[in-house]
């Protein structure tokens, strides 16, 4: 865990790029800034960063393309998308291109730093790492959530979730049958809470459902409680 972590920041908005790098530097990371996708890819071909923060709309090579290429180099490299178009992200679904998480612009710098920290911790996990209560594995019938590895499996099948999705599901699965309001869910998934609308939670839940249904078409444990929020039902065996 020693030595500075390299965080690649690929962003063509100069102010954001500089501010992110500044914040990363303050947190003790070594930021590596790029203002277009192609230049970043050329650099990544030589050496991979520890975390990549990508914008979607980039000159020369857009962020989605860059992400796809990065995945050919490494399946485990944590990738965070920063985008101003949520619906754009909905369309390409971070999953298909293998992103670990995404934040919508404008985002809070602390939020981004928190994500970077979570992803770095997961990436640096060794099997022997000591686990606290917070990190204890949650098992609800077929569902297994590993907070340390941010990994989810449904009846043995791994379900790839973004960090946000994982945190949401974790909050629900820790208290099966109990309704969580959207506010509580926001609190769980976005510790820094910035510009998150109720709709955001809804679309996250929808995406989680879709991912689980890809693994098992009968999955229906995530239940909407109209007017209140959501709850995780213990599915019948």
């Amino acid at each position, binding site marked *: 865990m020693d030595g500075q972590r390299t965080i690649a920041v690929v962003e063509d908005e100069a102010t954001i790029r500089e501010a992110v790098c*500044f914040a990363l530097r303050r947190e003790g990371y070594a930021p590596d800034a790029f203002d277009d996708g192609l230049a970043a890819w050329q650099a990544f071909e030589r050496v991979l960063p520890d975390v990549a923060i990508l914008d979607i709309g980039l000159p020369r090579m857009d962020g989605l393309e860059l992400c796809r290429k990065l995945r050919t180099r490494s399946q485990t490299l944590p990738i965070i998308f920063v985008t*101003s178009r949520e619906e754009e992200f909905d369309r390409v679904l971070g999953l298909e291109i293998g992103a670990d998480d995404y934040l919508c*612009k404008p985002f809070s710098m602390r939020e981004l730093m928190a994500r970077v920290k979570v992803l770095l911790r997961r990436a640096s996990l060794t099997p022997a790492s000591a686990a606290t209560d917070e990190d204890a594995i949650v098992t609800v019938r077929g569902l297994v959530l590993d907070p340390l590895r941010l990994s989810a499996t449904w009846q043995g099948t791994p379900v790839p979730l973004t960090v946000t999705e994982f945190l949401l599901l974790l909050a629900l699965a820790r208290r099966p049958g109990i309704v969580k309001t959207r506010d509580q869910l926001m609190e769980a998934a976005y510790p820094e809470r910035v510009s998150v609308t109720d709709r955001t939670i809804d679309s996250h839940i929808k995406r989680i459902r879709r991912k689980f249904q890809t693994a098992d078409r009968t999955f229906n444990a995530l239940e909407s409680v109209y007017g209140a929020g959501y709850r995780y039902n213990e599915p019948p065996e």
Partner: protein
Amino acid sequence: MSLKRGIALRLFAFNVLLLFLPMAGMLYLDVYEEGLLTSQERSMVQQARLVGAAMSTAAAFDAATADAMLRAVERGDARVRVYDSTGTLLADSNRVGIPEPPAAEAKTYPAATVSTRAKVVYRLGAWIARGRDALARWTPRVSGKRPISLDADAGGAGPALPVTAALQGRYGAATRLTPGQRSLTLSSAVPIRRDGRVVGAVLVSQSTYRVLQALYRVRLRIFEVILGSIAAAALLTAMAAATVVRPLRRLRREAAALAERRDRLPGRFLDADRKDEIGDLARALQELTRRLDELIRDAERFASDVSHEFKNPLASIRAAAEMTSQSDDPADRARFLSMLMKDVDRLEQLVSGVRELARIDTQLQQEPLESIDPAALAAEVIDGLRVGYGNSPEMKLEVRGGRCGVRATASRLVQALENVLANARSVAPPDSTIDIVLHTEGRECILEVADRGPGIPPAHLERVFERFFSYRPGTSRNSAHAGLGLAIARSIVQGYGGRIAARNRDGGGAVFEIRLPCEAAPFPEAMQQDRHPLRL
């Protein structure tokens, strides 16, 4: 079919109106009746004259001769009577044993009377006719009807009025009702002269029964035709309603469903496949809703694009503000503050650009148009840019061949040209030349702006005119290029009925081509001197 209102009712009314002529014809068959009666009277007089002439030249003028005479005459169904000068009946065709008209005919008439007039249809017609007669009583009659005398001569008690007239040497005629019948009996009397002296009279009388029978039959036939026609009119109306009114009502329902938001845009109209006018209407409605849907989608896309475009500077501002507040180093703070100010400027530019773009279509329609000489206008814009920004990259204007005027608002055309030139200047290397060529092709004025910049990938040739589309390889988005300039230029050019397109240039760079319709025929070269720079 609903006859309550609208087209179906009107169709029926028109169809029935067509029947008014034959209907009026039936009701006014009186004229025909009059004609029949006149010709009947004429033949009666003719008959009387014949008998009279025969009597006047007969050997003797007495009852026996008259009797023999009447016996010899083919009588038809007229009754012929001969009177002497005192008005005494000498002979009566009804009382001589002359042969009856063919038996079959005689028997048919009464039967026909009953059957024709007893028919339900006829009675219905008669009922209507009575209505007409009742109406007629209110309007004074001009046409004189034959006067009907009610004096009787049936029993033969005394000579009838016409006989009296005939005995006085005149022609006598009378009309009276046949007792117990609808028909009339016409009587005509002519004098019989022997040696210039009136010695008697021949009276021919005949019932109008035959005439009435003919009339009844004609009336019945016409009335049947009219009833049939009304039925046909109703049927035709029903068919017309089925083919016109029903689809119209369906269209109305479908349109109302869209207007009341029960159906989704763009609407689908069931009759759009028809090849007739209803189909045309359905297609027009469909096109209308499609356009409406397009506009709504455009507005949604515009809002989405705008919010998206605002998020980048907002994210920048937020990031800079956060860093300013978190940083202790005055140098860092100053740096972030200046970035913040730049982003605020950018946001302001974006706001005004978006406002411009959103309003440009309506504004173009309101602004007064004038005749503009594009060559003079281009020269002015280029001069202005040179003064403002220097001539690097160099801008060269070339005007080829005949020129023509265009109808536009000068300031708008300047804006469009400035935007295209600004785009070219922003990508052209400083030591290169931007060639601006103006020429006329057919009825179009063409302005080309060619730069030596990096050119445009073929996939983006169309997209460069989309709002917020900015393709600037190697440059950061943070510059002032919001991707609105070319979009605004396109809106302006299209607003004047022109086109704008981009293509790559031989030897590197891009060419932007603006085509505007010529206002009139291109000017002859000789007329191009001494022209006001902007106005023609």
